[in-house]
């Protein structure tokens, strides 16, 4: 909002003059240098993933050759794609995508449905449910994972996709975020729909969902990043490669005597690329999502 305001106010004459002042240039160069230094580790990763020789990667790290690859090769990536590397990373990546897709789709749907009933439903006891949800929001995931693991093992869900999808689909935070959006929808819109005799689900589906794309995108982005980066839970719940996500796969490189740096680098790039594509496409949405999670959470 404020950027719009500041853009429309006439700027001081000095700043419109053709000659940019020296201070502005210095500032720009400073920001550029800081940005390059801060982002250089990510750049190193992408460069290193194109070097198939893992000893060369380590040898190059200590010099400026770390920023340069003379003979770029996709060998590491083809190894992963054809399952011929040290670990089945192709499989881990597919697993992660399956878990991501199911969690985000189910999460957006279930959370928004519940939020709609809490905001506009006539069901008795809604206030109690809402208070309970807000109270539960404070419980950190780390505090419940061990009892949850024991529970999941007891019902035979251990080492499954379901165990990685079902527990994190519905979430008090996201229900609350969508709820806050829904209660700001003008009453007239809801009333108009009820006069037409539409059922609650119909009102939700054809009136409220289309209205709430911004908040649904926010939830999808936050839940997506969270799911993609899950580590502690899949580390405990997956015992085989069957449902293991890529985060745990990459981490299993550590602790061996020789780390396969080339595969680890390529796998890391593959883990970053999907996020990066979405981020580049929806950068504004990403930033506003994180802000709304902060302000309301």
């Amino acid at each position, binding site marked *: 909002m*404020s950027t719009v*305001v500041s853009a429309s106010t006439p700027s001081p004459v000095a*700043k419109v003059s053709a000659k940019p002042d020296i201070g502005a240039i210095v*500032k*720009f160069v400073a*920001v550029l240098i800081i*940005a390059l230094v801060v*982002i250089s*580790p*990510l750049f*190193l*990763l992408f460069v*290193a993933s194109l070097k198939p020789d893992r000893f060369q990667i*380590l*040898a190059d*790290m*200590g010099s400026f050759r770390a920023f340069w690859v003379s003979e770029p090769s996709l060998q590491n990536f083809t190894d992963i794609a054809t399952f011929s590397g040290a670990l089945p990373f192709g499989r881990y990546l597919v697993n992660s995508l399956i878990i991501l897709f199911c969690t985000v789709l189910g999460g957006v749907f*279930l959370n928004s449905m*519940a939020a*709609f*009933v809490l905001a506009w439903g*006539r069901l008795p006891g809604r206030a109690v*449910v809402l208070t309970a949800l807000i109270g*539960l929001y*404070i*419980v*950190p995931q*780390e*505090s*419940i994972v*061990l*009892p949850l*693991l024991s529970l999941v*093992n007891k019902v035979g869900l251990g080492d499954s996709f379901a165990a990685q999808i079902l*527990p*994190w689909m*519905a979430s*008090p935070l996201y229900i609350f975020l969508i709820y806050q959006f829904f209660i700001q929808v003008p009453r007239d819109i809801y009333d108009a729909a009820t*006069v037409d005799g539409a*059922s609650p*689900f119909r009102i939700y589906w054809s009136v409220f969902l289309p209205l709430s794309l911004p908040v649904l995108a926010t939830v999808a982005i936050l839940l997506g990043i969270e799911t*993609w980066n899950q*580590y*502690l839970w899949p580390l405990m719940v997956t015992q085989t490669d069957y449902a293991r996500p890529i*985060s*745990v796969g*990459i981490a299993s*490189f*550590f*602790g061996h005597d020789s*780390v396969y740096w080339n595969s680890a680098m390529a796998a890391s790039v593959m*883990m*970053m690329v999907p*996020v*990066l594509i979405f*981020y580049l496409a929806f950068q504004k949405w990403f*930033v506003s999502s*994180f*802000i709304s999670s*902060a302000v309301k959470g």
Partner: protein
Amino acid sequence: MPRRKPPIWGGRLQELGMLLPACILIALFLLLPFLSSFEIALTNQRLIPRPVPVRFVGLGNFQQILTDSAFWTALWNVTRFTVMVLPIQCGFALAIALLLNQKLPFRNFFRGLFFLPAITSMVVVCVIWSTLFQYPTGPFNQIVGFLSFGLVSPIDWLGDPTWAMPSIVLLSAWQAYGFQMIVYLAGLQNIPETLYEAAELDGANAWQRFWNVTMPSLRQTHIFVLIITTIQAFKLFTQVNILTQGGPRGTTDTLVHYMFTAGFVDQRLGLASAVAILLFLIVLVVSLVQRFVVRDRR
């Protein structure tokens, strides 16, 4: 009021059908484990049940934790981590936010760039930084050697008890500052321009404007950022689990790592649940402090 009779019962059943799926999942996978952790913490239950019946041990688990020096080390480490990471991470985030809040060419591009580490998975961050920390020829050792003209010998960053925690701090701050940065940016954009104009009329220089306009206006943002960073810091696990396994000599052991080792590695579910409850209490207290401080000033 419309005369038309809405299908009340059908409508309510449908509402129930819409509300229940999410509530059942939360009850099963959040509320139930949370409540059962209080019960489990009073027993000697194992992760994989043994033929021996589970015994009620009262507060024995808590007693055992509170007399275990490894637990106090973990708590101390997490405190140390928090105290180090708070100023570095939040200070850097504020500095970048201040820079990016000014008129600057390609400002949005820079904002996007500076936010990149925040969307990078911690596992990927560990892969990158473990190469940066390589002993003895990694980039950090090269830089240290270069700056000291070779006087300082290479440091085993993650393997040296003195340096392991500071290294984890640096890596964690780099990964996470982006979030605090955008919160600060949002806070900075809410400061009315007129305040700065008034300060300028009063002859305040840039330094005075920062301390007398910017900092006081950011008060709520500061509180929020400090609280959320503290809570995050107390949950430190992934980096430590991947890079140091709590070592060397327990100097990077954390609460969650202690809990993970007790419950998952050693299979002592009862003991781990007791740690989980203590972690919850710490998070609860920090959150309550925030509510209290924020409400106090409103």
